[in-house]
């Protein structure tokens, strides 16, 4: 999962694409944060994440997330286009199409 996501971020770094996480690790404690940093480095997580627990209600509750990971595909206008597509090739296909639409809108 993470290696594939990292490759997507790398592949589309010059195009209108962002991978945004909502992270549920216990980063509100020093120990939790240290653990997070360690794993972040080890796994090569290069993208930004919201801290799930920092919001009230938790972001995952507001978004009625019941299973992890949950994925939302949001287009350049903020519209939800897909949910929970997980197959790597299908993910790329769908995102490529969305990114092309975003680029077309820029022109």
């Amino acid at each position: 999962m993470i290696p594939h996501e990292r490759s997507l971020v790398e592949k589309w770094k010059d195009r209108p694409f962002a991978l945004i996480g909502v992270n549920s690790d216990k980063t509100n404690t020093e120990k939790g944060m240290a653990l997070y940093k360690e794993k972040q480095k080890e796994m090569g997580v290069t993208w930004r994440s919201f801290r799930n627990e920092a919001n009230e209600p938790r972001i995952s509750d507001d978004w009625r997330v019941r299973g992890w990971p949950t994925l939302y595909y949001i287009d350049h206008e903020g519209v939800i286009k897909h949910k929970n597509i997980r197959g790597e090739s299908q993910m790329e296909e769908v995102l490529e199409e969305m990114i092309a639409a975003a680029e077309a809108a820029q022109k």
Partner: protein
Amino acid sequence: MLRSVLAAALLLSGSAFAAADCGACVVSQQDPQAAYTKLAKDFADAMAKHQDELKAKVDAARKAGERVPRAAYRAPTKEFVETAQELAQEFAGKDAAVPFLGFILKNASAERNAVKWAVKTLAAEHVESDAIGDVVDYLPRVARMAGRPAMTLMNDIADNHENNDVRVKALLARSRQLAAKDDSEGAVADLEKVQELTEDADLLDEAKEALVEIKKLAIGSVAPEIDGVDVEGVAFKLSDYRGKVVLLDFWGFW
């Protein structure tokens, strides 16, 4: 009409005969409502007691640095489910049995056989009764324990019950279940059906609110704003990324 009168007469004479003929049979002298009230109260008391005892055990274990055995967490539902089963049998075939069957669906924790029996009995004897409307809310709860028959019964009530008020209750219960399974299309269809079938202001409000809640996260809707902080504590918003495609990933290392 004539046939149903005859059937009723037969049923009456049959039961009267059986009662007179069968000295060992228990003929119900109980008032079902009083029996239900007593069962529900005894159950509530037992659950409160269980909670208190559990809390004491957890506190004691924490002090001693020990673990609380898993069994201690299990609510003592068995005897109450059994009582409900006996009472449902006592009023078998009558509307008065339905609340006891509902009690089983609502409160059983691990009594799988009792749950299966209750679903089967509701489907066989009460599916056309209006009383079943009061227990449809509990069917999704037992979907796992009772398996397909629970869902079949739910669908039958939601799609076919002659009384629209009962149908509406089942449709609302099913829409919640569908929404929980991320089937927003199915949930929306049920809620729209509710709006068609009822004029009850409270139920219409409930359906409307549920529709808003589902559409909020449906495909085609504008994603709700997230105004939060990143893991470093720096504030940012989801809408900061307008103009870009965003893959929003709820994740964790754990």
